[in-house]
């Protein structure tokens, strides 16, 4: 009864304040609009392109790239060669769109990789690169890029943007958790309203859980909003046909959702602990800002360091980002995702316990 009363109070506080609701749901709408507009810009209908692409080695992936181009109304002319240097010169001179170099026995070897040489200053060459990178991403293939005349942000291409999606999800999740948790825990402590609850006969563990559980549910709304915004804008953003998007099956989306659902209570409980420790919302915001930067560094590691390895499942937040990257690349890292969820939830339980201890500590609760 006491636990339920605490939970109901947090929900009442949130659902009776339109400003909080807007703050929570806005990120998802922003993501949807942003990605949709970006996608439109990236994939604006243009005249059919005819790509001239040199090919060293061979792979079924080349066929997939050609099919994808065909679905976009473009065509690919494959120019088979063994002289990569000459082909590279032609790309540089604008006589060819790109050069793909498949490693030996690419399709059979798990360590196989593709070199893509393209000209970032040339629109057609960049368009081909985006297409090839997206296809290779979805097929979960390893590839490296060698770009000539790299001139700006365009050179980042779709590969990096795909990697950044989990990072953005983490950022929006963190923001959602921050906006409600700081106010509810640090704010209540600062205003003295938390002490009024502490003088009731409710157990400290119930008070801790009675804060964290509803705040996690509310933050989940924000996270779901971001997730839906991302998922719904993805077709436009990726510029891929719906057939290719079909590669993201139910389980891909389900596991991404599960990962988000494990990160939300983890971050909420962490911010709750920091907020309970802090003397004011201002102090808690400063600490939480540092935690957010730490999370961003972790996610950036996942973006820029390829093939991190299985040890990442032990690192909270990073584990979810790496698993989401795999899922977005079309792979289905089930065990990695589930272990990550388990690790995040176990750590959440630890933070709930820590907060319970803090609520019982007079130096933390009432220290000047």
């Amino acid at each position, binding site marked *: *009864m*006491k636990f*339920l*009363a*605490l939970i109901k*109070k947090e929900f*009442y*506080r949130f659902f*009776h*304040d339109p400003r909080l609701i807007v703050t929570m749901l806005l990120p998802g709408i922003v993501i949807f609009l942003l990605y949709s507009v970006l996608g439109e810009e990236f994939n604006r209908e243009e005249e059919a392109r005819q790509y001239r692409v040199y090919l060293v080695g061979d792979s079924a992936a080349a066929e997939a790239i050609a099919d994808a181009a065909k679905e976009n109304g473009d065509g690919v002319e494959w120019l088979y060669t063994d002289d990569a240097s000459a082909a590279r010169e032609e790309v540089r001179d604008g006589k060819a769109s790109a050069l793909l170099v498949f490693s030996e026995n690419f399709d059979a070897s798990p360590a196989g990789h593709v070199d893509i040489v393209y000209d970032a200053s040339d629109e057609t060459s960049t368009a081909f690169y985006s297409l090839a990178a997206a296809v290779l991403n979805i097929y979960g293939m390893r590839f490296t890029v060698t770009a000539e005349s790299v001139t700006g942000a365009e050179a980042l291409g779709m590969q990096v943007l795909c990697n950044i999606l989990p990072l953005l999800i983490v950022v929006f999740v963190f923001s959602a958790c921050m906006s409600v948790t700081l106010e509810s825990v640090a704010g*209540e402590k600062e*205003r*003295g*309203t938390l*002490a*009024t*609850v*502490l*003088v*009731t*006969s*409710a*157990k400290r563990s119930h008070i801790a859980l009675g804060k964290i559980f509803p705040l996690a549910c509310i933050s989940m709304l924000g996270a779901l909003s971001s997730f839906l915004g991302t998922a719904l804008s993805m077709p436009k953003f990726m510029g891929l046909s719906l057939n290719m998007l079909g590669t993201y099956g139910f389980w891909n989306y389900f596991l991404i959702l599960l990962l988000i659902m494990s990160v939300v209570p983890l971050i909420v409980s962490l911010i709750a602990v920091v907020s309970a420790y802090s003397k004011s919302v201002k102090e808690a915001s400063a600490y939480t800002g540092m935690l957010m930067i730490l999370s961003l560094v972790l996610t950036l590691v996942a973006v820029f360091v390829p093939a991190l390895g299985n040890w990442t499942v032990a690192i909270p937040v990073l584990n979810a980002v790496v698993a989401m990257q795999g899922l977005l690349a079309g792979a289905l890292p089930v065990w990695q995702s589930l272990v990550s969820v388990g690790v995040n939830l176990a750590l959440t339980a630890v933070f709930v316990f820590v907060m319970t201890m803090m609520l019982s500590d*007079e130096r933390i*609760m*009432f220290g*000047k």
Partner: protein
Amino acid sequence: MQEHEEIVRAENLKKTFTLSKKQQKIERTGERRRVAVDGLTFSAYRGEIYGLLGPNGAGKTTTLRMLSTLIRPDAGDAFLCGHSIVKEPQRVRDVIGFMTSDLKLEGFFTPDYLFDFFGAMHGVEKAALAARKRELFSRFGIDQFAGVQVKNLSTGMLQKVSLVISIVHDPEIVIFDEPTNGLDVITAKTVTDFLEELRRMGKSIILSTHIFSLVEKLCDRVGILLNGKLAAEGALETVAQGDLERTFFALYEGKGGTL
């Protein structure tokens, strides 16, 4: 009802605080530790009002905070309705109502919502809670403000709301830290009248104050607290010796205090 049933017993309560560098600077002191309460022993009985009288910094609020289990004593113990504040803090919180200016109500909520919330937090049944709300809201004139957000209430009304919420669960012991501080004369009268009513109902009240007239008007027994120690304790007539104020300052100067 048993005559002179001991309902609160404090035994050698001690509390020391560590002063932060900032506090040391503000108070212009080099001492690292401050003894707030030093071996406090007293008893309060059912159906009486016990007053802790003392100047600022004497240890009154610290004592009440220990009794209400918000902070733990460094040594000693206290028993409220037989429950130890050290070993059974949760049981103690069941039998007390604590009101102090440090405990605030969230401005977003209405008195109506908060009464129900704190009633649930104390495990009060819904029907009993509804009846008690009707009674207390009517008694304090809160009923017409029941749906107004706390942040929009006047100071006096807020104090009344805080008061009724602190006793939502009809506790055996009511602990008030400076009950009339900051109140206008009308609200202060309402509060003191209610404390007397609570006493008639057999409740025990422990209050802290530095107002002599309040002690003389309300208290059955009084403890004069100076520098964390009880300088005098007993029935009001015995301690006051005809003039509480004169007795207090005699004790104060006797302990080295200067005016």
